[in-house]
């Protein structure tokens, strides 16, 4: 079934049989699912039959009553985008996250004219973002298992039919040229050599400096070509700078991207006056208690206390005055209290992803004569 082929490149209106959709359970739980009217999607809250999703508009909330407790439970059915896809990946995988990938694309001026080399493919999340915007993406992965996984995934996502070529290759050893005999998704039936002609390069390799000299033969001539090397350690940057300089790349600049996500929260407004009122209440009750004990010792009771005793409600049991509720048990945003809107950074941040080293090169500066 080839209905899924377009899910990353075409805007879809209605969820159809065979579609790859992302089911949003929560921010941390987004699951890719292929629509199959016979199948169901199980969560801890209950079961969502696919046929409740098929025929609905993308973005629809799908609601059920939970088994047993009979409560309202729901998911949202979304069309995949590279960014949502990245969020859906398990966190243990090495992923180039959106703050980095979007900056790299912008800085390398990625758009409909771009012919991009990516090495290595890794989890493939960045490949999706590239594929959305560029003319051609040539991605290389040296790890056999990851290569096969990525190729399968790209096929299912329809990327190979569009503008993506994936090749199994150790680019440090063997460079970027794609030729017959290679393990690649490129159809080499009628070609000997593929003209990569790349004008943007992204190297996410442990030793990019071993690959840089291979670039000269595959990048576009007579135009400005950009490269970005993605390395976690500063010593890698140093070696990369050395190699870039030696190979004639210029405008070399290393940057770091720091992406932060904020949660919108509320903090209870607790005024000084309320705090004072509460202390006064405590003091009053304390004094009343002392006097009561004193009177009890002296065998005396006020009329009120006698009444209270008749009602079986001793004064000491009266509810305490507390304008702030019972501490943590007040739900954030409870309309009985006043709230101040605050932002809270995620409790664990990605303080470092990698250093991004950019450089540019014009391989052939020959002048072209005006033709018009």
């Amino acid at each position: 079934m080839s209905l899924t082929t377009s899910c990353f490149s075409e805007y879809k209106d209605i969820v159809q049989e065979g579609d790859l959709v992302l089911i949003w359970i929560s921010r941390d739980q987004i699951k890719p699912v292929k629509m199959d009217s016979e199948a169901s999607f199980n969560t801890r809250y209950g079961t969502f039959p696919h046929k409740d999703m098929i025929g609905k508009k993308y973005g629809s909330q799908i609601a059920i009553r939970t088994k047993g407790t009979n409560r309202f439970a729901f998911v949202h059915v979304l069309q995949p985008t590279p960014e949502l896809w990245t969020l859906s990946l398990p966190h243990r995988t090495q992923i180039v996250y959106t703050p980095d990938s979007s900056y790299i694309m912008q800085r390398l001026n990625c758009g409909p004219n771009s012919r991009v080399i990516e090495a290595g493919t890794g989890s493939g999340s960045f490949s999706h973002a590239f594929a959305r915007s560029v003319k051609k993406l040539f991605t290389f992965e040296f790890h056999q298992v990851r290569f096969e996984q990525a190729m399968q995934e790209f096929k299912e996502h329809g990327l190979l039919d569009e503008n993506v070529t994936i090749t199994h290759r150790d680019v440090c050893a063997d460079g970027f040229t794609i030729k017959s005999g290679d393990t690649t998704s490129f159809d080499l039936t009628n070609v000997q050599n593929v003209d990569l002609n790349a004008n943007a390069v992204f190297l996410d390799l442990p030793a990019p400096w071993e690959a840089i000299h291979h670039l000269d033969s595959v990048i576009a001539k007579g135009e400005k070509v950009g490269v970005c090397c993605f390395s976690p350690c500063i010593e890698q940057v140093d070696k990369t700078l050395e190699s870039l300089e030696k190979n004639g790349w210029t405008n070399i600049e290393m940057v770091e991207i720091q992406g932060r996500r904020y949660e919108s929260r509320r903090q209870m407004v607790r005024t000084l006056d309320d705090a004072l009122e509460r202390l006064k209440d405590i003091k009053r009750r304390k004094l009343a208690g002392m006097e009561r004990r004193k009177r009890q010792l002296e065998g005396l009771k006020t009329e009120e206390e006698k009444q209270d005793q008749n009602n079986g409600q001793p004064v000491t049991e009266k509810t305490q005055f507390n304008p702030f509720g019972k501490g943590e048990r007040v739900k954030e945003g409870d309309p009985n209290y006043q709230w101040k809107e605050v932002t809270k950074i995620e409790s664990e941040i990605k303080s470092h992803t990698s250093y991004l080293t950019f450089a540019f090169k014009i391989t052939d500066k020959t002048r072209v004569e005006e033709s018009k």
Partner: protein
Amino acid sequence: MDPLTKICADQYVVMRLPSDNCKLVELKVDSSVSLGKFGAFNVNDILGYPLGTKFEICYDEDTAAEPIPTSGKFKNKIPIGRIRVLDDSTLIEEEKLNNFDSSENNQDLINMGSDIQKLTSDEIEELKKQSVSGNEIISKIIESHGNFHKKTVYSQEKYLKRKKQKFDKIFTVDYLSSSALLQYLIDKSDIQRIMDMSQESLGMLLNLANVRSNGTYLCMDETGGLLVYFLLERMFGGLNDSTDTGKIVVLHENEHPNLDLLKFSNYSEKFINEHVITVSLLEFFEPPTMEEVEQRFAPLKKEQLYELKSGKKNTYYRKLKWYHNQLEIMKVTNEIEYDALIVASTLQLTSLIPKLGEKVHGSRPIVCYSQFKETLLELSHQLYSDLRFLAPTIFETRCRPYQSIRGRLHPVMTMRGGGGYLMWCQRVLPASEPEVTNNIEV
């Protein structure tokens, strides 16, 4: 010739000068461009080279042939120099600093405030007239500097950089990408006008909004067209003959839209009119009805049109244009479910976004840029309690550039502080609460 890769005539390009300042220049054939103290050159001399090429302006015997007026109207006119393409390898050699002695520290430098320079400024002026390149001037200046060898390599670098910025006659001609335009506006210190935007925030906005060549986007842009420029670059890459179908509907809060910055782009007016539709907020929220429009004007049939006198014909076409405009307003207001809502506006977002968000297709992103986190905080709280919007999230992204010189690597010491924030959420379609009996077991 490809205006995306080569320096072409009638194109706007960005020129970077030794002072690190940028200049936007429209390249008119047969004209010259003056870079002030960095010299002047003929446009024809640079056409046809790849965009990104670095040039040096040279003044030698040949150019000296052109007399420099010492008085009269052209007294201060910068003489036009010869153009030399700079080779990358030369550049790298020149940028290095291995030829001078240096001190481990500044200990021997007693007078910290000013440098001991034996050349008078008149002598330097004389050098400028004689020398072929800025590099030679700088070498001479260093030779004449009493304490240069007593400086640390750090101080020497600082000194050299200052001098290079003053005497080098080098410039780069680059493609006016969206990032280059942004950088130009930042350098011009027009930060407030462009809402303190940064390259990293806009790059992230484009990706979060899932911008593609074939989408129809609803947009508010309070920066004079910078945001739209970014969208167009990402969608069409400066290709004037692009066959992609993407469209941007730009809402504006004034009588007329302001997309002035688009004049710097490579797109023809026709192309822009085809892909960028501007509508005022009033027209968008209170569009005319078909009835109202037809009351005021109804297009004639072909036969009727033939019968019109030429005088009346002009009036007719003016009205016809108005009529089509009204139809378009009705269409963008009533018929389109947008593929993204992208907003950079200082209007109160809590009153704006829920209403605009209504027009977005399910499962499509809403991205809102703001200079201030606080306005997005308010917005995200409101969207959070509205079932039509899924998981509003506030993002901040900051790029931290390094002094990327081997052996002296460190983040730059000072940089601009701002860059703005993004709110991202997905438009969704709430379901009605299902009946208890609807509980399906599988």
